[in-house]
């Protein structure tokens, strides 16, 4: 199996506060990988470091074989076209319709003509389960679940091989959340995606993740298949996974 992301000795520090003291893990092609842990353990920070929104203090993160901590501007731009990021609140551009939001990367980065772009957008809207008539609504006119779907469609607009999800099911009702899980699984199979996700949603974790890493107290306390993790002796793991659901 090919490693898509390889994190080595990752060290993060904010002022005097050490967030990560040497994280090591890797993510294989085609898997859905979860980064879990208690609040404030720096899960989202790892994600932000991977997508180059946050500088690392030490160590390296290799994505598609390139170290994002030490990368040229052009390489970084190239890398950015090969992944999609879904933010917690969607972060759709509020002055653009859903259609324009999804078409924007295609218009900026490719030379495709209008008709083909509109077909691609139509396909992305369909694949995430939105209706055609939603395409011309503005983000302020749609519900939270629809925003997530639309944001996912935007993340997928350049056909990335890698998808980052920050709390994809937070703020969704259980039914929408389960639908979203299914959508992620479907898209992984359909488009051959590799998915990295930060989540708190236990059901979603059980249903979607292939492997996971648990960050607690600045280090990775467990990683691997979920079944192996659950049996480990760690206070966070015991309270998190053994909670009645």
């Amino acid at each position, binding site marked *: 199996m090919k490693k898509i992301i390889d994190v080595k000795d990752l060290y993060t520090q904010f002022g005097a506060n050490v967030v990560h003291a040497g994280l090591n893990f890797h993510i294989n092609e085609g898997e859905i990988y979860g980064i879990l842990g208690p609040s404030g353990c720096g899960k989202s920070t790892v994600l932000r470091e991977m997508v180059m929104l946050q500088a690392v203090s030490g160590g390296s993160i290799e994505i598609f074989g390139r170290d994002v901590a030490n990368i040229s501007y052009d390489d970084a731009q190239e*890398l950015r076209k090969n992944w999609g990021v879904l933010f917690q609140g969607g972060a759709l551009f509020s002055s653009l319709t859903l259609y324009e939001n999804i078409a924007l990367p295609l218009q900026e980065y490719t030379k495709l003509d209008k008709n083909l772009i509109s077909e*691609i957008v139509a396909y992305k809207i369909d694949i995430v389960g939105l209706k055609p008539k939603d*395409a011309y609504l503005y983000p302020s006119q749609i519900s939270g679940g629809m925003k997530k779907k639309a944001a996912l469609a935007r993340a997928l607009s350049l056909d990335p091989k890698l998808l980052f999800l920050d709390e994809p099911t937070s703020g969704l009702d259980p039914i929408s959340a389960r639908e979203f899980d299914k959508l992620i699984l479907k898209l992984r199979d359909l488009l051959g995606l590799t998915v990295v996700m930060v989540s708190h949603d236990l059901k979603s974790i059980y249903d979607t993740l292939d492997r996971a890493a648990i960050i607690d107290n600045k280090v990775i306390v467990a990683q691997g298949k979920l079944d192996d993790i659950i049996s480990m002796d760690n206070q966070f793991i015991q309270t998190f996974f053994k909670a009645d659901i």
Partner: protein
Amino acid sequence: MLSKKNLSFTSSFANNRLDFSLAGEINLYTLVSFEKELESKLRNGSELFLNLDDITSIDTAGAIYINKLEQTFTEKQLAFSLTCKNEQVISTLKTIHVLHLDLEEFVYKQPSFIEKLGEDAVLRMKKFVEFLSFFGQISYGFFYLFKHLRSLRYKEIFFEINENAIKAFGIVALTSFLVGVVMAYQSSVQLKIYGANIFIVDMLGISIFRELAPLLTAIVIAGRSGSSFTAQIGAMKITEELDAMRTMGFDPIVFLVIPRIIALMLMMPLLIFVSDVTGLLGGMLVANLDLGISTSLFLDRLNEVVAAKHFFVGIAKGPFFAFLIASIGIFRGMLVKDDTQSIGINTTKSVVESIFAVIVCDAVFSIIFTNLGI
């Protein structure tokens, strides 16, 4: 692993059939060259045979294009066939193929002119009705607070007085001073021609007291406080702070709106007074330097010819202007919707509308006072 941009073609034409072979990757970036190459090779009415055996990967955009090609060929009743060995490419092609999107549904219907006009009219009408209802809420709030004086937010009122009036004294004084200087300077040229130097006092006194000082102050305050009210309340609306306040039983009208309105209404007369004084100071300076009217002569003359009513008319306009500025600023803030553009649009409108409202109000006052003989 990163998507590459290599795609090469070979083609041959025989028996009205184009054999077109591709090697490399078909993706968003190489698709355009594929499209161009194919179009240049394809002759009208010829059949197409696509050889995708050497394609290593294809993305959904490429699959959509090939699917579209097939559709156009079937529509023209021309033979279309393709071959492919790569399992992954086949499965991507298939996922697109099973999909029959009705693109008709995606066509955006532009509303007609009449439709837009009607929509616009209804929207404006609704906004006006909303403003009336907001006005009603404020009035209700005032009556309520009149009965429950203890729940008036004194702390907020003093905070707003400091923010919106005391901190504005400097800029109001400076603008008025400069306008006084300019007014006196411009008119001194005309007055000198007639040797009517002393009338500068009458002119400046009446115009500054009655009109210039109140209007100037209102414009400065509309730009300063009106816009900040809109932005503050608009941001609170976006972050759902207003809703949170309502659910906790903190009526935003009592907590946010009325303190701001009271603060401005109390302080506007004072601001106008400052504007009166500094405006006249500016005029006095020019009169002294340019027209040779000494300060004591200026003040004596002012006392003699400008009745106190002119001063009081100007001051009396203050609370009305303040009410318009504060209520329009806050109302616009409440209209902010859940998107980032909305704050900018509403802040602009709040300033423009409040200045406009102040000028309309001033015109109405002027008619009323003239008819009353004040």
